[in-house]
């Protein structure tokens, strides 16, 4: 086991994948010689050559569209969109092409590919470097959407995503790249070296897609979270003194329905937390899933704590960000319900 940041873990995953399989290629804006603006691909070009790790033109539809063609040829492209906020020009290629090639060709063609992108706020990125578009992916049949919350998972999930025979959207919470973040932005930053999940093997391993992880077992309320909000929820539960069961979804599609349902049936209460905007956010789907499956086990209305339905404001980042105070208030509220 080696101490790793999430950046090092993601790089290590691509390194392992490229070493094991000549068909894995990596490209995107600034990912070649420079190694990516967040340095996730640093050293890969030097090690594997320019034909396997290279810079792409500033064209997200081009990056994803070319990856679809490469995957149809038989490669396993793992491409980077520099920020999730930049994925929209490639959205057509993701949702109507990559997602549907297997289906529309009845399996004649397939497109195993990974689209990596840093997601979420917390770094003063303003409205075009802070978005969390996961619901836009989860709404689409034919792709999988993964959001890791720690270096160990990030590496294992990315290796599983690269090996997966379907297209996978891999959203990396950029606020977690260098350490777990509990939402207390005014406190000193915690590095991954002090966290148990900041350790991962250098060698190949996988973490299966579609499986949630219970980060904290609890009896009172189920908290459904992913990405950065895992740590916010943990801090909030501790500070509010609520015995919460915190479920890190890790893959939001396909969703680990069994783990979610078992937990809510056990606790009878549910709080959903995400950083993305509220209306039609992924929390709405989680709420529906829980209502459909666990309605008669519920002892209180389900509550969502999310970003507000506004663009991500620059100066007011910490007012927008659903921090431990707001999550804690929701936990208390759901416990007070009769």
């Amino acid at each position, binding site marked *: 086991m080696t101490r790793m940041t999430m950046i090092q873990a993601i790089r290590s995953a691509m390194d392992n994948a490229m070493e094991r399989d000549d*068909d894995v*290629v990596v490209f995107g804006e600034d990912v070649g010689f420079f190694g990516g603006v967040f340095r996730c691909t640093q050293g890969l070009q030097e090690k594997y050559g320019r*034909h*396997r790790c290279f810079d*792409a*033109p500033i*064209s997200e*539809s*081009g990056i994803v*569209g*070319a*990856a*679809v*063609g*490469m995957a*149809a*040829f*038989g*490669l396993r492209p793992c491409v980077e969109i520099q920020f999730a906020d930049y994925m929209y*020009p490639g959205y*057509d*290629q993701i949702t*109507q*092409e990559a997602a549907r*090639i*297997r*289906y*529309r*060709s*009845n*399996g*004649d*063609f*397939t497109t195993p590919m990974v689209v990596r992108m840093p997601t979420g706020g917390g770094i003063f990125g303003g409205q075009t470097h802070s978005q969390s578009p996961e619901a836009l992916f989860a709404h689409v*049949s*034919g792709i*999988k959407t993964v959001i890791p919350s720690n270096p160990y998972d990030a590496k294992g999930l990315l290796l599983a995503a690269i090996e*997966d*025979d*379907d297209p996978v959207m891999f959203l990396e919470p950029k606020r977690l790249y260098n350490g777990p973040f509990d939402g207390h932005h005014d406190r000193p930053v915690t590095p991954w070296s002090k966290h148990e999940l900041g350790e991962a093997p250098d060698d190949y391993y996988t973490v299966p897609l*579609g499986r949630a992880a219970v980060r904290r077992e609890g009896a009172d309320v189920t908290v459904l979270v992913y990405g950065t909000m895992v740590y916010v929820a943990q801090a909030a539960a501790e500070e509010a003194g609520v015995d919460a069961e915190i479920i890190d979804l890790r893959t939001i*599609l*396909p*969703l680990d*329905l*069994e783990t979610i349902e078992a937990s809510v049936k056990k606790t009878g209460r549910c709080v959903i937390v995400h950083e993305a905007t509220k209306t039609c956010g992924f929390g709405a789907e989680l709420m529906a899933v829980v209502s459909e499956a666990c309605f008669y086990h519920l002892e209180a209305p389900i509550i969502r704590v999310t970003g507000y339905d506004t663009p991500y404001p620059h100066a007011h980042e910490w007012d927008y960000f659903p921090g431990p105070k707001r999550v804690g208030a929701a936990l208390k509220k759901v416990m007070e319900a009769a």
Partner: protein
Amino acid sequence: MSDSKPLSLYVPEPEFRPGDTPNFSDVAIPKAGAARRPPVDVEAGDIRDLAYTIIRVMNREGEAVGPWADLLSDEEVKAGLEDMMRVRAFDARMLMAQRQGKTSFYMQALGEEAIACAFSKALRPGDMNFPTYRQQGLLLSSDYPMVDMMNQIYSNAADPLQGRQLPIMYSSKEHGFFTISGNLATQFIQGVGWAMASAIKGDDKIATAWIGEGSTAENDFHSALVFASTYRAPVVLNIVNNQWAISTFQGIARGKAATFASRGLGFGIPSLRVDGNDYLAVYAVAKWAAERARAGHGPTLIEHVTYRMGGHSTSDDPSAYRAKEEATCWPLGDPIDRLKGYLIKRGVWSDAQHHQMQEMLEMQVAEAQKQAEKNGTLHDGPHSSPATMFDDVYKEMPLHLRRQRQESGL
């Protein structure tokens, strides 16, 4: 206000609308044989003229002339004529089947048969086409079974795509035909990506990508040219300029400023404009571009100048927006008549042989239709089991889909 005049927006209009008598005498048609044939390793900047002219081989007397001529034997040309006639007979039959209510939708390639039929002869097994919906000629000139195409059109029990796709959105990896999207231009960049993959793996296969002139306005056209030129991808990028994008004339995608082929020049991609109704010219240019790609010289952009003689699809009525006689006045003529004239002039073909081939092809198509209808039609069935709609969304069916299938009772 200053002394300048108020601005006004220029909105291009086609010259002729319903009721007008079309007159194409001002459309410049260069003489056959006049365009030069450069070496395949030429730089784009050295052949700028070829992006503005029209490369033509067959002259009005039916002779093949100039440096792009004499690449095919008489037997190969006869086979090409048969391919085009097969496409036309197939289209006529399937158009009728749609009118008879046997399927929902059809798109013919009427007047554009030469492009796909000739192009396919420049490719090798293993190469991959990323076609649009009007390149059925790629399949019909390369031994793909007509019955399978019809099964797909009917979405019947033997449909290779299990009834998932709109009619004519074929897919056949084995025959080098990438699954048709139905969305426009998306496949143009995918073809470039496929070609890049071939180069990454040190393979010798090339890709072709296809787009209509109207869809060159899409961002994926631009993405494709950027990627193709940046990485010198072994790809042939084809623009089929059939003058009409449903009801929108080609001027809306470019104004009168340039040709579609000339769009490639800014990317440093050698760009050629060819008479798309001249089977011999299309073949010659396709072969040149394929050779370029295979030799590692990178992409070529080809604008095939043609005319969409029929409606955009069975859901379209062109008499509502364009002059009725346009198709017959079109100065590049009918590709089948022209190739027939060439073969007759060569003394190796006759009206009687032509008529005989026509009858034989109609019989083959009718026979294939009979076979296909044994497997069902869209409206009368049978179809694949409805439960198959849940298959192949993912390789393994996830729990939520398993539950939905179960709840559906299918």
